């Protein structure tokens, strides 16, 4: 390689590094701001928005408020955690069942079922909100019972999201199944002792995606909880803090709450990032 090409490459790399650094700053900037403002003392701006970034006086006022008797934050956090845990658990089970049936078994109505679910997925979710609310109400799963209600709704319709997991199952050679069946193993046995242990990455992916979704659900969650604040999840409660007219008093509290939510979820996500990437890439290519 001659010298001019070397300098050319060095310049190219320098530009790339510079761009990447700028991009990183843009991407991290809001999170840094969020963190800094969560540490601002009440003495400055009374916990509202101020026109500067660095707090003049650092304090944990907002965090202390969140854990105090005054606020139901701990309860909301618990609610969300419970929802996320059970949704992740049951949704993964449902998706695994559906994916195995559609990937490995050939039965009457299989293609009809797949096409039908594809069409169902094209209806906007909010369309059915009032009807779902009514159905939940019949089972007393609104207001006080909103938590199990939300879990039920999320799990009940999760069978339609089988694409990624089915795509993964499709890549496991069918010859393995055939061999096991010749040895006398039943379909159920193959599913539990062969396919599931082989699908660890995609199970982690499915569970991770299912676990993350409830943290963002505020529309349906607020509709189902309907004014019963004990049943709020964090998204509903904190979105109310920001959108009420006196959000000024709650701004740093929102920031503090946001940090408390974002840190564990993000940490979990970063740890399992490998599986996530595998899942989305596989899903995107197969469509």
């Amino acid at each position, binding site marked *: 390689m001659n010298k001019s090409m070397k300098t050319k490459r060095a310049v190219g790399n320098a530009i790339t590094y510079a761009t990447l650094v700028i*991009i990183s700053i843009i991407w*991290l900037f809001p999170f840094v701001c969020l963190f800094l403002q969560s540490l601002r003392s009440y003495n400055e701006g009374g916990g509202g928005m101020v026109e500067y970034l660095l707090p003049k006086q650092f304090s944990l006022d907002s965090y202390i408020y969140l854990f105090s008797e005054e606020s139901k934050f701990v309860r909301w956090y618990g609610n969300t955690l419970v929802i996320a845990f059970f949704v992740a658990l049951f949704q993964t089970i*449902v998706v695994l069942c559906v994916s*195995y049936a559609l990937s490995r*078994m050939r039965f009457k109505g299989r293609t009809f079922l797949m096409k039908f679910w594809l069409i169902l997925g*094209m209806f906007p979710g909010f369309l059915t*909100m009032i009807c779902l609310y009514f*159905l939940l109400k019949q089972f007393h799963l609104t207001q006080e019972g909103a938590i199990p209600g939300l879990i039920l709704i999320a799990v009940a319709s999760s069978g339609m999201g089988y694409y990624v997991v089915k795509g993964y199952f499709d890549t496991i050679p069918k010859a393995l199944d055939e061999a096991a069946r010749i040895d006398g193993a039943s379909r*159920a046995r193959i599913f539990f002792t062969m396919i599931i242990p082989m699908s660890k990455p995609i199970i982690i992916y499915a569970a991770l995606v299912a676990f*993350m979704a409830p943290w963002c659900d505020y529309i349906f969650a607020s509709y189902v909880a309907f004014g019963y604040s004990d049943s709020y999840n964090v998204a509903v409660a904190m979105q109310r803090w920001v959108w009420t007219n006196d959000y000024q008093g709650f701004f740093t509290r929102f920031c503090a709450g946001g940090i408390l939510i974002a840190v564990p979820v993000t940490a979990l996500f970063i740890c399992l990032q490998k599986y996530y990437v595998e899942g989305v890439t596989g899903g995107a290519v197969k469509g």
Partner: protein
Amino acid sequence: MGKFFRGVGNDFKEIGLTFKEGDWKTRVSYLIMGFGPLMRKQFVRGIAFLAVELLYILYMAGFGWNYLKDIGTLGTVARVVNDNGTYSYNDNSFLILLYSILSIIITFGFLVVWRMNVKENRNEEMLLAEGKKLASGKQDLYSLLDSHFDKTLLAFPVLGIFVFTVLPILFMICIAFTNYDAKHQPPTSLFSWVGLENFKNLFSFGTTGLGPTFFVVLMWTLVWAFFATFLTYFLGMGVAIMINKKGIKFKKLWRTILVMTIAVPQFVSLLYVYKMFAADGLINSYLMKWGWISSAIPFWQDPTLAKITIIVVNLWIGIPYTMLITTGLLMNIPEDLYESARIDGANALQMFRSITLPYMLFVTGPFLLTQFTGNLNNFNVIYLLTQGGPLSMTLANKAGHTDLLVTWLYKMTVNDTNYRMAAVLGIMVFVVTAVISLVVYGMLPSVRDEEGFQ
């Protein structure tokens, strides 16, 4: 379609044939389901069929029929005033419609089971005639874990989707043909069928019609989906190319930084960004402090600026996602393609245009399509940032300048309880999504020519 009718025709022929050729046990089974299997000692199947019939009769007699009989009118008397001034509620249109749909579907299901019952009888007779033994109850139950394992696996998911997705969607489709709105709220008043009136209203351009607003919102929905999809796609690919470039270090670090926006729940990050760009937010404050502007930039108040800001903020959300997906795919492109291009004297841009881009478009075609339809319904980004605002004086039904069809639908449902129009709008969203999906799917190179790049 022809195939379907031929199938139904054959079905009827077989039902008739079974009756004609069947023994008396089979014939009784036409009325008392499961009678034949029970007489042939097929207890598991027989009891299952009989139970279905009994449950169906109990359901219809005790519950379903009370509602189904009023489906034509959706109720006549909402409530009556008692002598002591209290109300007693009578017909409830909501319940009548919902339970009627349920009853109709259950009836269809019952007919299917009845048909299975007829077929079961015929199969048993044929097997016995051939001198074979029928499956024992134990074998039947075992088959649910083996050859019929699909039924075990799918039973709960299908039931769940049926009750919590299919039933509500059918219900809302019906609502589009009624006058269910703020003035017709059960249980105090009734709603009734109005035919196509709501659809006419959506497409009428008169003073009260929603036509002009609908088309403005639809156009913005399409424009938004276009930019949100393709800008994030190309920029995300650009970032991925940069990170993958030879000689660039800390690849994992760059990726992890970007991935933060996927990991942090959107209501935290987007609500914060919304406040950052607000009139009293950080960005305006600093720009004013530095003397670059004299008054706050109306990021969320000006219609055009709000649209641009939304698309830009969406880049922040969307780029990491495309970056992740394209990273793996870019590494799949054979290196020798680039080598030979380099020898031919191609520069980086030429190589991108003639090697990278065609390959990526080919592989990610289906992904782009799902991204596009997903963006058509991207509720979170719009609602957390602007809630559809700024409000407009010219648009009807409180639609804002950045409202997508779905956010408008949501507002109609929650703020105005205008369910009739919300239902019509939901159907329109479905039509738009379905048409785009069908048309584009047929045009995708990876669908037309599966071997193309292999």
